[in-house]
């Protein structure tokens, strides 16, 4: 498919990202760019090395070759701010919802006024004001995951990585939360990489979809999803995108 005009500045560049474990090649020379404020989905077949890909971006593993650049310089946890949302909610159980959201901001030693402003904005945007004094253990799993997502957006990160955050939730809740994440992303202008196995979800949220191949993973294709939000999953154009991507990775 043709490249579309996009004149937002480059935010993240992944250049020649390769990962080997011994002789086993898992990631094979991945190259792609993400523009500032872009919402990108990464999809691939089951077992394509998705976790390794993520671990290389988050620096849990060091890449064997190549690297991740943010604003033109190699990503550095001390200088750049990369936030993650994992599949399982990972809130701190001894802190209330508002303290959880404020936690990362306190570590960064932001002024208290700024912390309060950001926390309130997130609570407003997500409709979480009533539960701000509640502990995560008293919430449902989906509500807890929303707190984590709020916490990540509050950091105003250079890059926000989400690893299938809605994988275990029922479909109706998922669409609700996907709408919410789109709303947060638009309001706050964050740069988001959203990893999922669910093609319908990818087409529903992404501006652009990066399709990975089987292991060793390389980039099969990058695809712009040229549909306005909110999207309709029964729209023929939507189904066309969905079928197209499914054909690219279908193994089942």
């Amino acid at each position, binding site marked *: 498919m043709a490249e579309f005009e996009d004149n937002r500045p480059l935010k993240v560049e992944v250049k020649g990202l390769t990962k080997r474990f011994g002789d086993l090649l898992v990631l094979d020379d991945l190259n792609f760019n993400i523009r500032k404020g872009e919402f990108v989905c990464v999809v691939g*077949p*089951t*077992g394509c090395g998705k976790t390794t890909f993520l671990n290389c971006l988050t620096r849990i593993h060091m890449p064997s070759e190549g690297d991740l650049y943010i604003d033109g310089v190699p990503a550095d946890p001390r200088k750049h701010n990369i936030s993650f949302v994992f599949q399982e909610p990972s809130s701190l159980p001894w802190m209330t919802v508002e303290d959880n959201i404020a936690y990362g901001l306190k570590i960064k030693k932001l002024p208290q006024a700024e912390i309060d402003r950001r926390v309130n904005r997130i609570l407003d945007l997500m409709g979480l004001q009533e539960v701000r004094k509640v502990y995560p253990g008293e919430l*449902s*799993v*989906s*509500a807890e995951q929303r707190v984590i997502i709020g916490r990540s957006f509050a950091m105003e990160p250079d890059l926000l990585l989400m690893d*299938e955050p809605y*994988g*275990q939730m*029922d*479909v*109706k*809740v998922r669409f*609700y939360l996907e709408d919410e994440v789109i709303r947060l992303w638009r309001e706050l202008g964050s740069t988001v990489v959203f990893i*999922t*196995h*669910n*093609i*319908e*979800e990818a087409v529903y949220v992404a501006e652009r979809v990066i399709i990975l191949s089987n292991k060793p993973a390389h980039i099969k294709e990058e695809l712009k999803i040229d549909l306005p939000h909110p999207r309709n*999953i*029964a729209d023929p154009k939507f*189904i066309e995108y*969905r*079928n197209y991507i499914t054909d690219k*990775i279908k*193994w*089942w």
Partner: protein
Amino acid sequence: MEQQQMTKKMEVKGISKTFYNKNSYFTAIENVSFDVKDGEFLVILGPGRCGKTVLLNIIAGLEEKTEGAVIYNGKEISGVNPEVGMVFQKLALMPFKTVLQNVELGMKFRGVPKAERHEVARRYIDLVGLKGFENSYPTQLSGGMKQRVGIARAYANDPKVLIMDEPFGQLDAQTRYSMQNEILRIWEQEKRTVVFVTNNIEEACYLGDRIILLSDCPAKVKEIYNIEIPRPRNMVSKEFMDLRAKISDNTDLAI
């Protein structure tokens, strides 16, 4: 349709379940009634976390009910029903047993001789596509393969009714599609009555002869759908998407 001729295998009549605490109580299920027809693929679709597993445990006789009755082949059942098999979301495979030993477990409990046990177990291991993994331990298998073991284990005990409690809930979306096709293939090859619980509307529409839609807490029957779309169903066809939308609009949002 064939369904009209199907006889009632099981009747779930006015089941309620309330949990009592020291000074509070919580109703998980309220007056749930439906029939299970012989040989059908019945899906129970419920949002959120409320009541589904408890309902299944009551049907299987693993849990006490507060009110109501479970009628099986015309007789009221109390305690564990030996003709019911179960597949669990959390797998509950024994990590210390090989695939073969896991599949044999029910037959071992019933005192089936070893040679016969092996033969039956192997047949079902083949059926679910795990030939060659008989001597592997569960930790050596992928998520989809583990769930295949769970299915083979339930079948090997020769149940008349198979209850499946969100069996694909922990699998990724693609493995889930592949297992949905697998379970239909197995069901068509070895016809049993299946009661399949899920919170996934797409999965419910793809698999079920009928769907019983439950409400969020407390779980009540909201609506029962007969699905007339012939198999294999196309998940992006218009009639499928319409059905999905119709059920989705009628489903509670359980945030």
